[in-house]
C-alpha cells in the first residue's frame, strides 16, 4: 500500500480525535521537556563541579618523589644474585626534589603535538609568620601567564590582581582563609620562612579563593622567580612540570610515556582524581534514569490512549478490512499514529525543554565557595536533544506496537455482524 494513503488515513483518525491526541502529545512533550531540562541542569552542575578540579589540575604532572634507590650496592655482589635481599632502614638517596634537566624536558614537551601547554612550577613547604605564631603552608612558584592560560588562575583571584604577581617583585597571593588567619590585607607584607630557615618579606597583592576551604587555608602563590629566590636556587630549578593536553583522555598514556622518557614520576589526572570520575558518572547516570523513567510513563499514556482509540474505531477498522485493507495496513496506520504523536510531542518538548533550560540558566546562584558562578549552570549538549527525540520516537513506537497489533487482529465479521 502506498505510504501516502496510510499517512492520510492516520492523519484523519488523529484529527477526528484531536483533543485526545493533544493529551497524549502533551504527555510526551512534558517528559521530553523535563528530560532536557533535568539532564542539562544536572550535567551543568556536574561539569561545574568537575571544572572546580579539572580546570585547576594538570592533565599530567611530572615531579620527583624522594625515594630509595632501587639499585642497592648488594645487587652488584655477583654471588648473591638469585637471592632475595633483605635490607633494613634504607635511606633516600636523592635529596633534591627538583626535576633534573628541566629545561630540556620542557623543550621536548613543548614540541609534542598532543600538548596544549605546559606550566613549570615550584612547590615548597613554608611557614607564614604571624607574630610569634607560625602557620604552616605551601608556596607555589608559578609561571603566572601560563598558569592563567592553562588553569584559569585569575578566575580564582577574588580581590587584588593576578597580574601584579607577575609585575611586582617579591609579591605573593595568599589563600583567602590563610590571609584572614594572618590578618593581612592587600599591600601588607607577609613574612615567609622557608624549610631552610631563611625569612623573606613578601608583598601581598591578591587573595585566592578556590571554593575549597582546606585548600585556601594553606596556599600561597608567588612567581616562579620569586620562589627560586627564596629557596636560593638557580633559574632552572623546577619541582613540577604541569602539562595540559588537547585531549584529557590521553593523559594516562602520556603520563606513562613521559615517566619512562624523562625518568621522573608522572601522574595523570584520572589516577589523581579517580573519585571524581566515579562521582560524576553516578550523577549523570541518575539524571538519565530519571529522564528515561519520565519517558516510559509518557509511553504508558500513549499506550492507553491508543488502546481507547482502537475500541472507538472498531467500526472503522472493520470497514477498512472489509474493503480490502489487510491487517498489516491497519497496523501500519496505528503505528503511524503513535509515532506522529511521539514526533510532534517530542519536538515541542525539545523546544520547551530548551526554554526551561534558559530559564534555569537565568536564575541567580551565588555561593561563597564558587566565586566564578553567577547563575545555575546548564549544559546545552546537543546530544541530549538527539537522545530526547530518538527516545520519544522509540517509546511511542513501542507503546503503539501492542495496540496496533491488536487493531490488526480485529475480526471484521464480529464487528459487522454484532450490530
Amino acid at each position, binding site marked *: 500500500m*502506498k505510504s501516502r*494513503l496510510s499517512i492520510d488515513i492516520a492523519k484523519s483518525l488523529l484529527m477526528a480525535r484531536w483533543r485526545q491526541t493533544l493529551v497524549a502529545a502533551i504527555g510526551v512533550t512534558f517528559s521530553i521537556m523535563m528530560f532536557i531540562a533535568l539532564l542539562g541542569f544536572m550535567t551543568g552542575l556536574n561539569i561545574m563541579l568537575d571544572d572546580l578540579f579539572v580546570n585547576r589540575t594538570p592533565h599530567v604532572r611530572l615531579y620527583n618523589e624522594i625515594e630509595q634507590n632501587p639499585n642497592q650496592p648488594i645487587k652488584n655482589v655477583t654471588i648473591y644474585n638469585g637471592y632475595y635481599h633483605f635490607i633494613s632502614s634504607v635511606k633516600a638517596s636523592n635529596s633534591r626534589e627538583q626535576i633534573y634537566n628541566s629545561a630540556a624536558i620542557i623543550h621536548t614537551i613543548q614540541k609534542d603535538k598532543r600538548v596544549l601547554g605546559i606550566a613549570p612550577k615550584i612547590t615548597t613547604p613554608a611557614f607564614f609568620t604571624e607574630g610569634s605564631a607560625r602557620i604552616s603552608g605551601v608556596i607555589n612558584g608559578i609561571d603566572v601567564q601560563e598558569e592563567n592560560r592553562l588553569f584559569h588562575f585569575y578566575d580564582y583571584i577574588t580581590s587584588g590582581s593576578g597580574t601584579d604577581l607577575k609585575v611586582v617583585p617579591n609579591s605573593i597571593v595568599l589563600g583567602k582563609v590563610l590571609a584572614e588567619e594572618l590578618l593581612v590585607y592587600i599591600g601588607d607584607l607577609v613574612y615567609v620562612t622557608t624549610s631552610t630557615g631563611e625569612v623573606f618579606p613578601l608583598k601581598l597583592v591578591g587573595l585566592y579563593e578556590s571554593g575549597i576551604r582546606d585548600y585556601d587555608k594553606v596556599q600561597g602563590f608567588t612567581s616562579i622567580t620569586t620562589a627560586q629566590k627564596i629557596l636560593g636556587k638557580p633559574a632552572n630549578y623546577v619541582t613540577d612540570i604541569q602539562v595540559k593536553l588537547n585531549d584529557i583522555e590521553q593523559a594516562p598514556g602520556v603520563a606513562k610515556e613521559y615517566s619512562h622518557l624523562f625518568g621522573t614520576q608522572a601522574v595523570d589526572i584520572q589516577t589523581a582524581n579517580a573519585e571524581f570520575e566515579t562521582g560524576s558518572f553516578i550523577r549523570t547516570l541518575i539524571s538519565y534514569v530519571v529522564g528515561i523513567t519520565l519517558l516510559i510513563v509518557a509511553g504508558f499514556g500513549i499506550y492507553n490512549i491508543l488502546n481507547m482509540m482502537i475500541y472507538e474505531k472498531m*467500526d472503522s477498522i472493520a470497514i477498512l*478490512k*472489509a474493503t*480490502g485493507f489487510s491487517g498489516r495496513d491497519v497496523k501500519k496506520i496505528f503505528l503511524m499514529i503513535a509515532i506522529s504523536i511521539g514526533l510532534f510531542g517530542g519536538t515541542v518538548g525539545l523546544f520547551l525543554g530548551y526554554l526551561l533550560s534558559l530559564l534555569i540558566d537565568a536564575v541567580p546562584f551565588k555561593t561563597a565557595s564558587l566565586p566564578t558562578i553567577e547563575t545555575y549552570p546548564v549544559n546545552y549538549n546537543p546530544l541530549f536533544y538527539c537522545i530526547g527525540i530518538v527516545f520519544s520516537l522509540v517509546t511511542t513506537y513501542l507503546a503503539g506496537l501492542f495496540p496496533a497489533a491488536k487493531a490488526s487482529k480485529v475480526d471484521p465479521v464480529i464487528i459487522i455482524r454484532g*450490530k
Partner: protein
Amino acid sequence: MNGPVLEARHIGKRFPDQMHIPVLSDISFTVGRGEFVSVMGKSGCGKSTLLYILSTMDTDYEGELLIDGELMTGKKSGRLAEVRNEKIGFVFQFHYLLNEFTVLKNVMLPGLKLDKYSEKEIEARAMKWLDVLQIKQLATKMPNQLSGGEKQRVAIARALINDPLIIMGDEPTGNLDKKNSNIVLDIFKNLSDEFGQTLFIVTHDPDFAEHTSRIIEMEDGMIIHQKNSARR
C-alpha cells in the same frame, strides 16, 4: 472469462461451542456473471454466516470457495484482503462509512488502496458513480450529515469504485424505510440490467427478492429451494 464468478463447494460451518449443531451444512452453488442473486431465509438460518464466508472475511469453515476460478480456502489473510479490495464490493445493513472522511474520500478509499489508477482518475470515477446514484451534490459532506438512504447510496458507490466482479450485500435495505428501500432496489436492478453487474444479496424481505433474477432459499443451514424469479 466465462467461468462462474463465485463457486461454493460443500461449504459447512460449526461454532466451536456447539459442535453437534452445524450452522451451515453442505452448501454448494455457483453464481454466474451478471446474475442478480438473493438469498432468503428466516433470521438464524445461516444466510449471513454464509455471506461472510463467501466474502472471504470468515475463514473458519469446511469445504471450498472459489472466486473468479481462484481457490480462496486456505489463502493467507493478506491475499484475501487483496481479493476483497479488487473483486468484491460490500454493502452492509448499516451504512458503515468512515466518519472521519468526506463522502468522496469514503468512496475513493478502496480505489486508493488498489492503487491501479492515479488519484485524479479515482476521483473522477468516484464522481461518476456518485452521479449515477444521483448523490453528486453530497460529495464534500461528512457522513454524519447524511440521511440513512443517502449513506447507503454512498456505500454502494464505494462498493463500485474498483469495478468489482461481484457486489455482496447483507440486508442492504434492512435498516431503511420503504421509500429508500425502493431507491436502493432500483439502483441494484439498474446496475444489474445496464452494467451487467453481478450481485449477491442476503435479505429477508420477500418484495426485494421478488425483483432478483434468482432466489436461493435457506433453512437451518441448508439450501431448501432455488428458483429463477418470475422477472426473467
